[in-house]
């Protein structure tokens, strides 16, 4: 490409800033950042689906599956973060690939709800499995990184860098992928599936590819979350409310930019953290209220704030 892609530049700057900031951040900030990266990755997967015109209310399925897959490996003695995250990502991807054959036939609200139904089945299976701690879940021990076994604060510092590198690669990858023929077909499928079919390509195949991708990144997010928190349990990882939170983050971020999903996730974490802190008994009220406010008054997500800002900069009022 002859031109410089500004999104890639922006992501790279953000990556570098965060990379350096990692060594200076307060622990709780890093921890919130880590969670935002993990949830943001899931939202990124949902964004890809959304651009294809589909919304899933069940991506806790892949988030939880990735988290449990990674966590279960620690039970049999594997602790390398690379292996765990890779396995979690892959497991969720395989599951998405299999379910994709069924789900790619559905659209709109039916697609959204069938996803939710499948996520509830996973939830039921986990609760039923006493070996995996049922509703209690189980702890995930501190990971190692290719033989390096950090202690204390270094655990989170290392994990943050680890996560940052992979989310950067994934995010830039997604952004570039969106510009390929297959990536661009998101638009085509969303706008007119019939035309896509009559141009000689399967809309369902396009959807299936996106679906597998969204499953992969959701699994990645789940595996990262399992390592970051050091715990997996069905209520926080596979419950339908978790899926709702992911859609919340996606809407909050808006469809505009791949990087926005992480900002959306961060805003979500901050709302929740402060609601928890200042209204311990009524934090759901605040969370729900913010969600409603965003839906009503910021329909295009927080990214539209940036756009508005830029527009007003460029075109001073007459």
């Amino acid at each position: 490409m002859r031109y410089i892609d500004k999104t890639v530049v922006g992501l790279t700057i953000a990556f570098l800033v965060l990379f350096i900031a990692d060594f200076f951040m307060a622990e709780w900030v890093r921890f919130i950042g880590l969670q935002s990266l993990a949830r943001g990755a899931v939202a990124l997967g949902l964004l890809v689906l959304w651009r294809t015109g589909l919304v899933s209310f069940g991506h806790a399925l892949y988030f939880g599956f990735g988290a449990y897959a990674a966590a279960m490996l620690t039970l049999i003695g594997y602790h390398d973060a690379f292996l765990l995250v890779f396995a979690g990502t892959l497991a969720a991807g395989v599951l998405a690939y299999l379910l994709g054959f069924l789900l790619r036939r559905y659209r709109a609200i039916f697609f959204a709800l069938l996803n939710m139904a499948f996520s509830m089945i996973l939830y039921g299976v986990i609760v039923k499995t006493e070996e995996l701690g049922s509703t209690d879940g189980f702890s995930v021990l501190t990971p190692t990184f290719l033989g390096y076994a950090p202690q204390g604060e270094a655990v989170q510092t290392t994990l943050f860098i680890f996560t940052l590198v992979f989310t950067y690669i994934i995010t830039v990858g997604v952004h570039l992928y969106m510009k390929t023929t297959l990536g661009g077909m998101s638009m085509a499928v969303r706008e007119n599936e019939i035309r896509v079919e009559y141009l000689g390509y399967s809309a369902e195949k396009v959807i299936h590819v996106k679906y597998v991708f969204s499953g992969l990144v959701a699994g990645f997010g789940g595996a990262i979350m399992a390592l970051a928190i050091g715990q997996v349990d069905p209520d926080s990882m596979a419950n339908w409310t978790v899926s709702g939170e992911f859609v919340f983050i996606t809407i909050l971020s808006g469809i505009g930019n791949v990087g926005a999903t992480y900002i959306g996730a961060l805003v979500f974490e901050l709302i929740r953290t402060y609601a928890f802190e200042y209204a311990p008994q009524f934090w759901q009220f605040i969370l729900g209220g913010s969600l409603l406010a965003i839906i009503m008054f910021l329909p295009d997500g927080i990214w539209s704030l940036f756009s508005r800002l830029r527009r007003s900069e460029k075109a001073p009022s007459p």
Partner: protein
Amino acid sequence: MQELIVILIDGLVFSSYLFMVSVGLTVIFGVMKILNVAHGSFYAFGAYMSATLIGAYYNTDLPEFGGFLAIFLAALIIGVFFGIVLERGLLRFLYHRDEHIIVLATFAMFLVLEDVLMMIWGTDPYYAYEPMALLGAVDIVELTFDVYSLTLIGLAVIVGLGLWLGLTRTKWGKLLLAVIFDREISQAMGINVTVVFTVTFVVGAIMGALGGAYIAPTISVSPGIGVEVIVLSFAVVVIGGMGSIPGAMIGALLVGISRAAAVHKFPEIELFVIYAIMALVLAIRPEGLFAPAQARKI
């Protein structure tokens, strides 16, 4: 033989419970294509209101059977109030937006209402067992059943039949079916879709609240009761076919009787029955057993 009859009775009671908690969800989905997550809140509010009214009623010296009126009154108050407030005050501004935005909005409403519930009624549970105590118990095949739970079967049949007849035999019902079939053409034909939507949402809300109001005497009305209902009702509706009232009935029967059989025969799998049926239906017929036909695109 005794066990078989007991399974059938237990199954019917639980099916009726399932039907009562899910019918409101399916009515709203069928007409408006909205998955109303706040349905669980309607259920919870219905239960709290019912418990409050029943409690107040039995503090008076009025005839004991009047307590049942309190149940229906509670459902009506909650359903009409929340139905109108939420539909007119919020949802109607979102009809032009994507379906999933509306689902998300109802999810937000659910979060908010959960806490509003606690602001109004606090965290202590409410009891309203008087109506259940009043009806007493009856022996069937040498086993004692409480009459109140059995009346649930009757209520479910009445509600199911009423809705079905209302939809297929009345002018209003036919209008509704027209709207379900094609919103735009109905509008062009002069049907006031706005009113149809409001009425549907109110009816769905009343149904949701009635589920809670009628169940209230048999349970401890306490925080969190609405959450479970969302999952249950959603599963029933998915199994039966989203938006189909006969589907909800069949789905409820299927789950209810299978669950009762599991409890009596293989209790360790009870938890999994509903998920297993859902998985099976999804694998074989993902649109649900009674899915309404979907229109094609060209």
